């Protein structure tokens, strides 16, 4: 008859008879295996403390084996158990048993360690003494395959820092793992390779060292790509993917494109490994257009989209799938269209926007961001689904990264040709973007101003008016002085779009700026000098827009501004084609068609004195850019309309 749990726990105490302690240990171990209720009960009774006591003070082999096994059982599948073990300082006594002369004790300790660190938890470098780490590496070369494989499995868990990775290499850890992978039978071979793959995912240099050390190793891994076992094929893919990590495409083995990617894509349909594959696939294709093309040629997108349906309640799998799909859709229109072929996929992605896991929300946003980088999708595909509501909600998400990514999606969704734009504006996106434009986080600030810039692009009079109402002119001027040149550029582009096209009211603009826009632009041009040609270009384009949509007063103001007029010849002669073009358009807009009477005297004098006429003539005749020559021709024709003498 088995004693009551309380009694068994009390027998673990040091004063008890050794046989009684051993029996109590065995009983506890047998009771908790596969029984979560019992595990909780023994944890509540403080059994872990008794187990740690035995590990710390006992010399008896059987007691050590049984206590390590029982501790492992309590921790296995129970986060609470693992935490309780670490809280009772059980790690150090367990690590000390790694030097035990009886390999059965060592094997039991290795198993227990694996149970304690089965989840994402990792011991810190301080918790694992260098000697213990070296002992673990040594054990991976043990004559006992069970011990060696057990140690090999733990190496990726215990190797958490660069110094430990160097130590591993110095101690011949990679060589030991290679040797072990050749020696053990198929199942253990996969375990060892998986350990190597996990290890080298963080330190790809270790895999390259392994390949360099043993010529046959790479060949064997490539052979394993044809293994009947899906797990074996997947592990081989992982190893080869790690080998290629951080290397240029030229340095990749030819098998990566011809075998690894097709194998991985096929494995997406294998229930045994399908949810593990996307992360590996993403690590290979991220940053490589060529490899993304290969993956899509093998129909990766429909398979990933199909998996989304199955992964809806598996947040970890959902995260990997969304990240991989996001990678595939960032730059390739064909991939976007392929993903949107099935309308239900989009609904799943939108559903993931409301995931409890912040990283999944970020990945879903990233996916949507990729899909929304297409005029056609914004026009025709991202239409009849409710994107606006969850997106607006994410702008106030407690997680900063989610906010940043949601704002990035919004940047694309508020474009004039996006069907969902009106819904977003009605939902208050203007006020929200304006409030985020003054955020303390620079990325969020950038995205918000970017969103406002896109919103103002070809925006209606009402939309432009609502931006001007929500965003004080002083805020914009401070954004124009932001420390980030990129943000300055977005703020300038926002201003440029506000004075672009026919939907612009000069009255509204003057009221907003207090009539200071010209002075501000002149200051921008003066401040940035020729350091940032793209900023100069936007500033010049904004001036050109002002001259284009404004009346005679605005044109006269521009030409009467000494700063702008003195800068114009320099910009017309700039080495940057885009700057010359922007300056030329300003000149053209200053001399509009049919303006002969009003502008003749004053503007001709000003332009003559500034030497602009001759520069424009020179551009017309000699500029290497056809566009510049053509615009200069237009400008010369405009000059002709106001000059007495042809230029």
């Amino acid at each position, binding site marked *: 008859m088995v004693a009551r749990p309380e009694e068994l726990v009390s027998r673990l105490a040091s004063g008890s008879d050794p046989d009684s302690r051993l029996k109590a240990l065995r009983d506890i171990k047998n009771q908790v295996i596969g029984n979560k209720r019992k595990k909780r009960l023994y944890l509540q009774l403080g059994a872990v403390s008794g187990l740690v006591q035995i590990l710390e003070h006992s010399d008896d082999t059987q007691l050590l084996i049984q206590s390590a096994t029982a501790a492992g059982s309590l921790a296995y599948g129970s986060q609470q158990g693992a935490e309780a073990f670490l809280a009772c300082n059980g790690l150090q006594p367990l690590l000390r048993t790694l030097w035990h002369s009886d390999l059965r004790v060592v094997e039991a300790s290795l198993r227990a360690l694996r149970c304690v660190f089965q989840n994402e938890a990792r011991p810190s470098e301080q918790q694992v003494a260098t000697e213990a780490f070296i002992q673990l590496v040594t054990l991976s070369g043990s004559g006992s395959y069970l011990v060696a494989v057990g140690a090999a499995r733990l190496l990726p868990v215990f190797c958490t820092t660069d110094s430990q990775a160097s130590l591993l290499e110095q101690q011949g850890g990679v060589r030991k793992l290679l040797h072990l992978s050749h020696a053990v039978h198929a199942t253990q071979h996969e375990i060892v390779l998986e350990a190597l793959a996990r290890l080298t995912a963080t330190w790809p240099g270790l895999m390259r060292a392994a390949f360099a050390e043993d010529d046959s190793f790479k060949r064997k891994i490539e052979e394993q790509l044809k293994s009947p076992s899906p797990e074996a094929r997947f592990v081989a893919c992982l190893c080869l993917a790690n080998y290629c990590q951080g290397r240029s495409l030229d340095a990749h083995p030819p098998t990566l494109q011809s075998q690894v990617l097709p194998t991985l894509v096929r494995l997406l349909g294998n229930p045994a490994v399908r949810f593990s594959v996307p992360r590996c696939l993403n690590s290979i294709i991220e940053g490589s257009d060529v490899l993304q093309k290969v993956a899509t040629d093998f129909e990766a997108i429909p398979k990933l989209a199909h998996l989304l349906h199955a992964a809806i309640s598996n947040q970890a799998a959902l995260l990997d799938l969304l990240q991989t799909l996001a990678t595939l859709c960032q730059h390739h229109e064909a991939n976007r269209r392929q993903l949107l072929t099935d309308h239900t996929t989009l609904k799943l992605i939108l559903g993931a926007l409301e995931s409890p896991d912040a990283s999944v929300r970020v990945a879903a946003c990233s996916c949507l961001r990729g899909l929304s980088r297409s005029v056609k999708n914004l026009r025709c595909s991202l239409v009849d689904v409710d994107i606006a509501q969850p997106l607006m909600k994410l702008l106030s998400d407690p997680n900063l990264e989610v906010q940043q990514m949601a704002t990035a999606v919004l940047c694309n969704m508020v474009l004039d040709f996006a069907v969902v734009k009106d819904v977003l504006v009605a939902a208050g996106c203007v006020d929200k973007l304006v409030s985020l434009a003054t955020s303390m986080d620079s990325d969020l600030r950038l995205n918000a101003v970017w969103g406002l*810039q896109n919103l103002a692009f070809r925006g209606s009079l009402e939309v432009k008016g609502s931006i001007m109402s929500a965003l004080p002119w002083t805020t914009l001027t401070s954004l124009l002085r932001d420390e980030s040149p990129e943000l300055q550029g977005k703020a300038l582009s926002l201003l440029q779009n506000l004075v672009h096209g026919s939907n612009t009211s000069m009255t509204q603009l003057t009221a907003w700026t207090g009539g200071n826009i010209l002075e501000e632009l002149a200051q921008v041009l003066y401040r940035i000098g020729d350091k940032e040609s793209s900023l100069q270009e936007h500033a010049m384009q904004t001036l050109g827009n002002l001259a284009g949509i404004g009346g005679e007063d605005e044109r006269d103001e521009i030409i009467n501004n000494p700063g702008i007029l003195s800068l114009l010849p320099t910009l017309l002669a700039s080495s940057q084609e885009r700057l010359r073009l922007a300056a030329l358009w300003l000149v053209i807009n200053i001399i509009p068609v049919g303006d002969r009477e009003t502008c003749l005297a004053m503007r001709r004098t000003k332009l003559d004195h500034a030497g602009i006429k001759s520069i424009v003539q020179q551009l017309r005749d000699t500029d290497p850019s056809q566009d510049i020559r053509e615009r200069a021709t237009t400008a010369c024709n405009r000059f002709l309309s106001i000059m007495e003498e042809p230029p």
Partner: protein
Amino acid sequence: MPLAPRRQRDGPWPSLEDRSMPDSRFRSDTPARVSALQHLRYLHREMRSGEHRQLLAGASPSQLEPDPCPAHAYQGVFADTNFSDSPTAARRPADELFETSESDREGGGIQCLGVPPSCSYLATGQEFTGRQRVSRVTSNRSEDWSVQVQIQDCNLRTGYVCGSMSAENVPQVRAPVVTFWEGEIIDNVNHCFVTGKWGTTRLTDSQHWRQFETAFIPLRNSIQWRCGGSCNKLADHPYIFMRWKEQAFVDAKEDCGLTITGFYYICLSRLDGSIQGLYCDPKSSPYQLLELQPANSHQGHTVGSYQFC
């Protein structure tokens, strides 16, 4: 033997022959209101095209089927050098319909295929306004559709352009009809003069491009029709050629009575941004003319910008 002589006219833009039918963008099953005179002209055109078909009956299938538009003109040019058409080969009747260009005959132009440089008027945000002449037969221009076009994306590297087209005054439709279109810029790299799809043949292409007389005639001897229609004179040419294909209705429903099965041959003048287009749809009357000018060209040219995040 060259194509039948065409009337040469002065001016920046060609004048097209009176060969269009009214309301030709209507589906064929939509009853069109056609005058007796228009109908007679239509029958006359049908007879003429029947003659063409008879003439083409003697041509080989390869000459009647659309050529694939090469992804890279270079491939096409190299392919040309291996053509079985030797200079001594007997010319078939259909060959007479194509003016074989010098480049075709020489298989040359490999080194100097030029890409059209950027143009301020072919840029994101540019708007055009004008009209589509659905009937050139009658002098009543009230039947013309008022058209607005916006360029919403333009990528010279990939030869891609897209935007929206809004048509007003469309018969039987009260609200403006807005469509989304995607375009191909003829750049020798991504797209050439031979369309190779949408039911066209080289003959269709040749006939349509030649309607842009002033813009196209200087190029005609440089186009290699038999290898995709690449041309070595695009680099400094004052016109940019494109094809615009409407992809979807934006505001109107599919059953609004209009069709978007065809596409436009487009010619943009780099100097002033004016555009001429010809609608091509086997189910519609040919040579409907689209005429556009840059919007607000008399006030001033404004530049906006957006970037996908």
